[in-house]
C-alpha cells in the first residue's frame, strides 16, 4: 500500500475510534437517578419470545410485573414503556417489536391519549435513543421531534450530550463497554412505599376531547394488531394520583366498543385486585410498587388466561431456565432493596444487577 493511503486509513480509523469512543463516554448511561433511558434498549437482549407485549408510558413499566405473570401463569411478557411515552412512539415501538416477534396479546395503556403533540425533548430521548435503527425509529423521531431538536443529534447523540463533559463520573467509565441493567423485561422494580396522601382535585380543562393525532395513532395501533392477527387490549392502570377524567374514560369506552376491543380500567377493580394505596405505591399513587404490580399482574393474568386461553409455558425447559434466572434476579433485587430501605430508609441502588 502507498504511504498516502496508509496515512488516510490510519487517520480515518483513529478519527472514527475517537469519535465513537467520545460518544460512548458522553452519552448518559442511565445507571443512577434516571434509569428510564435504559428501558427501551433492553428489549433487544430479551430473546424475542413473549406472549404478552405491554406498550404505553410510565403506567406500564411500573405497574405490571412480568415475573408474577410467569410465576403465576407461565406467561412470558415484555414491557416497552418509558415516562411520558407518546402514542405515536408506542405505535412505532409496536412496529419495531413486530420486526422481531409476534406476541399473542398486545396491551396498550391509554393514558398518553391526552397528548396530541410532541411534548418534551428529554422524554423523547428516553424513548427514542434506545430504539434500534430502522424505519420505525426514523418515523418515531420524525413524529416526536420538538422545534428545538434536530435530526443530526439523533444520528450522533454526541452532538446532544457533548456538554456532559462537565459531569463525567465513575459511572461513565464503569459502563463504557456495557450497559447497566435497569429492568426485568422492561419492569422497573421499586420496593419502597410512599402512601397516597392528599390528592388535589384535577384542574378543570377547557377541552376533554382527545386530539385527532392521538386518535389516528390509536387507530393505527388497532389496525397493526389486527393485521398481525393479534388481540389488542386497552387498559388504564390504577393510578389514583394521575388524572383520568370520566370524559376521557368514556371516549376510550366508545372507541373500544366501535372497534370491538377489550378495555379494562383497572381503577374499577381496586378491591378485586387487592390494592391498598397505603402500601402498594412508591410515589404517592402515581405508580404501583413491586408488590402492587405483582397483585395487578396476578389479576390481569387471570383475565388473559380466561379470555385468550394463553398456555402455561413453565414446562418448556429452556424457557423455564431462562425465566428462572430472571425470577432469581428479580427476587434478589427486591430483597436487596428491602434491606437498603431497612438500613438507610431509602433505596441506594436501583439497578437490576
Amino acid at each position, binding site marked *: 500500500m502507498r504511504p498516502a493511503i496508509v496515512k488516510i486509513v*490510519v487517520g480515518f480509523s*483513529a478519527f472514527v475510534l475517537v469519535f465513537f469512543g467520545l460518544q460512548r463516554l458522553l452519552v448518559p448511561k442511565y445507571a443512577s437517578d434516571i434509569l428510564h433511558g435504559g428501558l427501551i434498549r433492553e428489549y433487544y437482549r430479551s430473546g424475542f419470545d413473549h406472549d404478552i407485549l405491554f406498550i404505553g408510558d410510565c403506567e406500564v413499566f411500573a405497574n405490571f410485573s412480568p415475573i408474577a405473570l410467569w410465576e403465576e401463569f407461565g406467561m412470558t411478557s415484555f414491557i416497552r414503556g418509558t415516562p411520558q411515552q407518546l402514542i405515536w412512539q408506542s405505535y412505532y415501538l409496536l412496529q419495531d417489536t413486530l420486526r422481531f416477534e409476534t406476541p399473542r396479546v398486545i396491551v396498550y395503556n391509554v393514558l398518553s391519549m391526552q397528548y396530541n403533540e410532541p411534548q418534551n425533548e428529554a422524554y423523547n430521548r428516553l424513548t427514542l435513543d434506545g430504539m434500534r435503527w430502522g424505519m420505525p425509529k426514523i418515523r418515531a423521531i420524525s413524529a416526536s421531534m420538538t422545534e428545538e*431538536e*434536530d435530526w443530526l443529534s439523533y444520528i450522533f447523540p*454526541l452532538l446532544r450530550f457533548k*456538554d456532559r*463533559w*462537565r459531569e463525567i463520573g465513575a459511572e461513565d467509565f464503569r459502563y463504557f463497554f456495557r450497559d447497566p441493567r435497569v429492568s426485568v423485561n422492561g419492569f422497573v422494580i421499586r420496593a419502597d412505599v410512599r402512601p397516597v396522601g392528599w390528592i388535589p382535585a384535577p384542574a378543570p380543562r377547557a377541552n376533554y376531547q382527545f386530539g385527532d393525532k392521538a386518535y389516528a395513532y390509536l387507530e393505527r395501533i388497532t389496525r397493526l394488531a389486527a393485521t398481525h392477527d393479534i388481540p389488542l387490549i386497552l387498559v388504564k392502570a390504577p393510578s389514583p394520583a394521575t388524572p383520568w377524567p370520566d370524559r376521557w374514560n368514556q371516549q376510550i369506552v366508545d372507541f373500544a366498543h366501535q372497534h370491538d376491543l377489550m378495555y379494562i380500567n383497572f381503577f374499577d377493580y381496586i378491591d378485586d385486585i387487592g390494592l391498598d394505596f397505603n402500601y402498594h405505591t412508591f410515589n404517592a399513587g402515581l405508580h404501583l410498587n413491586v408488590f402492587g404490580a405483582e397483585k395487578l399482574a396476578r389479576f390481569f393474568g387471570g383475565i388473559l388466561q380466561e379470555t385468550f386461553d394463553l398456555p402455561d409455558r413453565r414446562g418448556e425447559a429452556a424457557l423455564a431456565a431462562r425465566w428462572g434466572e430472571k425470577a432469581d434476579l428479580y427476587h434478589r433485587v427486591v430483597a436487596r432493596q428491602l434491606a437498603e430501605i431497612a438500613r438507610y430508609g431509602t433505596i441506594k441502588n436501583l439497578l437490576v444487577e
Partner: protein
Amino acid sequence: MLFTSANFLLFLLILFALYQAIPQRYRWATLLLGSMVFYAFSGPIFLLYICATIIVSYVCTMGMRRIWERCDYISEGTDDKALRKQYKAEAKAASKRWLVTALVIVLGLLAMVKYTDFVIGNTNTVLGWMGADRSFGFMRFALPMGISFYTFQTVGYLIDVHRQKSKALPNPFRLALFVSFFPQVVQGPISRFDMLGKTLYSGESLNGHNLTRGGMRVLLGFFKKLVIADRLWPALVVLTSYPEDFMGAYYLFSIGLYAVILFMDFTGGIDITIGVAEMFGIKMPENFNRPFYSRSIQEYWTRWHITMYMWFRDYLFYPMTLSKGMLRATKFCRRVLGDGLGKRLPVHISLLWVWFLTGLWHGATWNFIAWGLANGIVIMLAQELTPLKNRFHARFAGAKTNRIFICLQILWTFWLMNMIRSFDIYAGVRNTFGMMGSVVTDFGLGDFLTRGLSELTLYTADYIAAGAGMLVIFWISYLGRDGTDYRDKLKNNFHWVARYAVVGLIFFMTLVLGAYGHGYDARQFIYNMF
C-alpha cells in the same frame, strides 16, 4: 444561515457537488448561484438591495469603460501629447460623473438603511432642545446582511475602474459574484478586485490539497468561534447589561474579556471565510496579522482588520490629504502656523475625519463615532509625540530591542485598545466614560476578589474550556511567529502522526467543548452587525 450551523455545512456540501459537476468555465456561475441562495437565507427581500448595488455598479462601470475605451481609441489616432492630455482630462471628468452617480446611489442605499434612524433620532433630540413639540417617526429599515462590507467592496471596485486600476467587468453576473461572494459577504474581508478577481473565476477543480488546507482553516475558525468566543459571550452580556454592578476592576476584566471574544469571533469568522474560499481554490486577502503583538496603535491598525484599514487609507485618507483643497489648506496653515504644525494640522484633520467615518461605518450610534474619534485622537497624539519618542530612543538606544520594554509596549497597546473598545460594549458615551472613570474612583479590587466570576452565568468548567482553547490558539499563533502559515509549519516540521493529532485535537475540542446545539443560542458574528 450561520457559518457555524449544520445548515451551512450542508449548503457547502451541496455546493461542492454542484461546483465539481459543472464544466470548469461555468463553475463561477455555480458560486454566484450559491451566493444568491446564501444571501436569500438572510431574507429574500434583501436580495433587492444587493442586486440594486450590482446593477448600478455594472451600468456605471460600463459607462466608464466605454469612455476610457473611446479615449484610448481617439488618443491612438494622434501623436499630439497636449491633445492626448486633453482627451484624458475630458474622459476623466466624464468617468467621474459615472463614478459620482454610482457612489451616490450605492452609498445612498447604505445610508438609507443604516443611518436614517440615527439622523431622525438626533434631529428629534435637537428639536426637543429647541422646545419644538413635534418629532419625526423612525423608519426602522431592516439592515441587509453585510451591506457595509459589500458596499465598501463595490465602492473600491468603482474607484479602481475610474482610476483605470481595474478594467470594468463586461459580464454583469461576474460582477455580481465579486460583490456577493458568499463567504465574504457576512463580515468581509473587504477584497480588491485586482486581487480577488485573479482566482474568483478560475473554476479550479476541487482537490485534496485545497480541501484539506482550506478545511483546516475552517476548522480553526469554528474552534475560535464556538470554543472560546461563544462560550465566554454570556459572561460579557451580564457584565455589560448591568454595568453599575460591575465597575472598577470588573470593568478592566470586561474589556479584557471583550478583547478575547472579539478577536476570536472576528478572526474565527475570517478563518472560515478564507478557508471556504481556499477550498474552491480562491485566494482572499488576509485580515489579521497577530494584532495583539502590536507595539503601538499605528502598528495595531496595520494588523487588525487590515482590509478595512487599507480601504479607508487608499480610498479616503490619501485622496483627501492629496486633494487640491487640502493642499491649499496645508499651504495656508504653513503660512499661518509655520512649517511644523502647519504641515501636520491638515493631516490631523484628515485623520480625524477618516476615523469619524470609520466609527460611523461600524454603526449608527454616537458610541461608534466616539470609538472612531478616540482612535484618531490617540494616533494623532502618538504622531505629535514622535519627537519625544525619538529623543527617548536616542537616550536609551537599547530599549527598542529590550524584551521587557517590548512587552510593556505590547501590554500598553493592548490595554489602550481595550479602553477604546469600551465604546463597543457599553450603552451610551457618557456611561462608557463613567465606566472608564470607575477604575480611578471605585476600583473595588476587594469586591472583585470576593465576588469573583460567580455571577457571570458561566461555570468554572466554561472558563477551563475557553482557557484550554486559548492555549491552543496561542500555540498556533506562536507557530506562525515568523510569518509562516501555521499549516505549512505543521506540514514541514511535524511528523504526520503529530499533525493528524493536532488537527484531531482541534476537531474534537470543537465538537465537545463548542457552545452550539441544545441549550445555546446560535449567535451571529459580532462584525456582521456592523
